[in-house]
C-alpha cells in the first residue's frame, strides 16, 4: 500500500531546497485572509495567484496552492463564528453553533475549537490520503449517480434536524430552498423559473444567495445593536480562551475522527466537496448527541463536526485530483490549471510514475498543518478583535465587501442583485422564525439531488431494483437509514431498560 522507496524520495525532494517552505507561509496567510473576508473566496485567491506559480517548480507550486486551500478552509470559519456569515459554503454548519457561542462571549474559545478541528481534520485527511490513495481512487471510480443522490439526500435530511421550534416552518423553508436550487436549466435541458433571462440559466448563483441569506439579513437584524457581543466584559481578546478552545476540541477525539472520515469520503466525490461534507457531518453529530436539542445553541461539538469535515475533505479532493486527474470543485479546478501549466496530467499514470512527487505533496501538507496551527493562533487572536468594532461601522463595511465579492463571483450585476433579494428574504424569514439555514441547505443540495435522481432514473430505465446491483449505493442507503433511525432507537432504549428492571423486580 505504501511505497517506502517513493516516500524516502519524497523526503529527499522536500529537504533538498528551501523553496517549497518559502511559499507555504504566504499561501496560508493568503488563504486565511481570503477565507475570512466575506465576499472573497478561496477559488478567487487561487485564481489570482496561480500566475505566480508559473515561475515555481511543480512541488512548490502545488504546496503554495494547497496552502491557500488549507488556510481558506479554516479562514471561512472566522466570520462564520464572529458574524454568522460563513466565509464559504463549507462553513455553513459552523455558524449554527459557532455564532451562538460568540454571542455568549465565547468567541475566542469557538475560534480555538474551529482551529483545532481544522488542523486535526486536515492532518487526518492527508493521512488517509497517504495510506489509502490507491483504494480510494478505485472506489471513487465506481461512484455514480445513485451514490451521489444518496449523499445529497443525506445532506437534505439536515433540514428536518434544523426545525427548531416550528417543524412546519423549518420544512417549508427547506422546500423553498430545494425549489430555488432547481431554477435554471436541468440536466435534461428543461429551463424553469428563469424569466427568460440568460443569467439564470445556470441557476441562482449559490454563493451570492448564501451571502444574502446569511450575511446581509444578519446585518439587517443587528442594526441598532452596539456590538456583536453585547456584554463589554466579554468583549475581550484572550489567547488563553483560544487555547482553552483548542483543548476542548482535542478532548473529543472520536468526534474529530468521525468528522474527518465523513469529510474525506465526501470530499473524494467529484462535484460534491466540503459544502456537503460539513452539513452531513453536522447532521450526524447532532443525531448521535446525548442532547440533540443543544445543537444550534452553542454546542462546541457542532463546530468540531463541521470544521473537521470541511478540512479533511481537502485530503479527499486531492485523491481525485492526483489519482484521477479530476477536479472536485472550483479550488481543485484551479490546481488542475497549475498542473497543466507545468505539463503535468494527474491520473493513474502520474501516480505510477511520480509517486515520490505525490508523497512530497502529502508530506508537505503535514508540515502545512503544523504551520496552520501556529499562524492560525495568531490570526484568530487578531481577527477576534472584530468584536470590539462598533456594528455601525462593521455592518456597512461587510455589506460593501459582500456586494463586491458577489460581483466578482458572477462577473455581472446578477451577484449583487441576488445578495439584495436574498437579504430581504432572509430578514423576513428570521423575523417569522423560519430557519434560514434550512433554505441554504436546500439551495446547496436541491439542484444536485434532482440532477442525480434524474440520471439514476435514466440509468435504471425506471427500474428501482437497479440499486440492488450497486453495493456502494446499498451501503450508503443502509448508513443513511441507520442514521435516521438511530435517534429513535436511542430514545426507546431507556424504556426497554426500565421495563427489564421492572421484570427483574
Amino acid at each position, binding site marked *: 500500500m505504501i511505497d517506502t522507496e517513493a516516500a524516502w524520495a519524497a523526503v529527499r525532494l522536500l529537504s533538498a531546497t528551501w523553496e517549497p517552505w518559502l511559499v507555504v507561509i504566504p499561501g496560508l496567510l493568503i488563504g486565511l485572509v481570503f477565507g475570512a473576508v466575506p465576499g472573497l473566496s478561496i477559488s478567487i485567491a487561487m485564481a489570482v495567484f496561480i500566475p505566480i506559480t508559473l515561475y515555481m517548480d511543480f512541488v512548490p507550486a502545488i504546496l503554495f496552492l494547497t496552502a491557500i486551500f488549507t488556510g481558506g478552509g479554516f479562514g471561512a470559519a472566522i466570520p462564520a463564528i464572529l458574524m454568522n456569515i460563513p466565509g464559504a459554503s463549507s462553513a455553513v454548519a459552523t455558524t449554527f453553533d459557532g455564532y451562538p457561542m460568540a454571542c455568549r462571549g465565547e468567541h475566542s474559545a469557538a475560534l480555538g475549537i474551529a482551529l483545532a478541528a481544522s488542523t486535526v481534520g486536515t492532518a487526518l485527511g492527508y493521512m488517509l490520503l497517504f495510506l489509502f490513495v490507491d483504494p480510494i481512487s478505485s472506489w471513487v471510480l465506481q461512484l455514480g449517480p445513485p451514490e451521489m443522490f444518496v449523499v445529497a439526500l443525506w445532506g437534505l435530511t439536515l433540514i428536518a434536524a434544523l426545525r427548531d421550534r416550528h417543524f*412546519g416552518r423549518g420544512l*417549508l423553508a427547506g422546500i423553498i430552498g430545494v425549489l430555488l436550487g432547481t431554477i435554471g436549466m436541468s440536466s435534461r435541458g*428543461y429551463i424553469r423559473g428563469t424569466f427568460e433571462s440568460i443569467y439564470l440559466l445556470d441557476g441562482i448563483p449559490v454563493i451570492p444567495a448564501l451571502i444574502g441569506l446569511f450575511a446581509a439579513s444578519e446585518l439587517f437584524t443587528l442594526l441598532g445593536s452596539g456590538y456583536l457581543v453585547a456584554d463589554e466584559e466579554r468583549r475581550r481578546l484572550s489567547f488563553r480562551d483560544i487555547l482553552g478552545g483548542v483543548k476542548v476540541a482535542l478532548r473529543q477525539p472520536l468526534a474529530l475522527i468521525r468528522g474527518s472520515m465523513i469529510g474525506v469520503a465526501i470530499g473524494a466525490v467529484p462535484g460534491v466537496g466540503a459544502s456537503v461534507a460539513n452539513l452531513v457531518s453536522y447532521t450526524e453529530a447532532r443525531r448521535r448527541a446525548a442532547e440533540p436539542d443543544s445543537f444550534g445553541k452553542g454546542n462546541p461539538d457542532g463546530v468540531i463536526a463541521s470544521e473537521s469535515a470541511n478540512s479533511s475533505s481537502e485530503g479527499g479532493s486531492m485523491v481525485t485530483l492526483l489519482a484521477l486527474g479530476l477536479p472536485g470543485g472550483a479550488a481543485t479546478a484551479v490546481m488542475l490549471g497549475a498542473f497543466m501549466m507545468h505539463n503535468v496530467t494527474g491520473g493513474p499514470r502520474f501516480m505510477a510514475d511520480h509517486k515520490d512527487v505525490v508523497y512530497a505533496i502529502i508530506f508537505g501538507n503535514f508540515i502545512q498543518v503544523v504551520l496552520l496551527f501556529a499562524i492560525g493562533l495568531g490570526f484568530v487572536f487578531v481577527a477576534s478583535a472584530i468584536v470590539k468594532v462598533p456594528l455601525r461601522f462593521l455592518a456597512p463595511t461587510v455589506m*460593501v465587501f459582500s*456586494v463586491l465579492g458577489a460581483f466578482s463571483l458572477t462577473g455581472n*450585476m446578477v451577484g449583487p442583485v441576488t445578495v*439584495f433579494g436574498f*437579504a430581504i428574504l432572509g430578514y423576513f424569514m428570521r423575523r417569522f422564525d423560519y430557519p434560514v439555514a434550512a433554505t441554504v441547505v436546500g439551495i446547496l443540495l436541491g439542484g444536485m439531488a434532482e440532477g442525480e435522481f434524474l440520471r439514476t432514473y435514466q440509468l435504471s430505465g425506471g427500474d428501482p431494483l437497479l440499486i440492488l446491483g450497486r453495493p456502494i449505493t446499498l451501503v450508503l442507503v443502509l448508513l443513511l437509514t441507520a442514521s435516521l433511525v438511530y435517534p429513535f432507537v436511542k430514545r426507546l432504549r431507556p424504556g426497554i431498560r426500565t421495563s427489564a428492571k421492572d421484570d427483574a423486580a
Partner: protein
Amino acid sequence: MERQETGPSNARRRIDWDHVVFASFLAGFCLWYLIETLSVSTDFQNWLLIAPASLLGLGIYLFIIGAEVLGAGPDPKAPARAGRPPLDVRVLAFMALVGLYVISMPFIGFDTASVLFLVAALRLQGERRWPLVIGYSAVVGLGAAWVFKSMLSVPVPTLLPALQ
C-alpha cells in the same frame, strides 16, 4: 401585529396577519413554480422533484395557516415571550439604502456608490462625526474598489480616473 396571550390555561391568540402574509408569499412561490415547471413540459423527468416538493410545501402552508387561523393552544415548549417587536424603520431604511447601492453601481461606479452608501449608512446609524464618516467611507469604499479592481483584477466599473 403582536400576539397577545391572556394566560397559560386558556391562552387566546390573535391571528398573526404579518406571518400569514409572509407564509402566503412562500406558498405563492411554490404554486407559481409548480405551474411554471408544468408549463415547460409535463414530462415526468421535468417535474419529478419539483412537483412533490411544491405540493408538500403547499400542504405545509395550509397546516401553518390552519394553526394560525384556528388559534391552536399555546405551544408548551415555547418559552414565555413578548410579542414580536414592530418593524424598525431604520431596518427598512437600511434595506432601501442597500437597494439603491446595488441599483446605482452600474451608473456611478462601484467606488462612488460604495462611498455614498457608507456615508448614508453611518449617518443612518447615528454616527455624527462628519470627518470620521467621510474619512472612513472614502478609505473603505475606494480601498475596496481598488483591491478588487487592481489587485484581484475583477472588472468592476469605477468612476474615478485613478481607478480606471
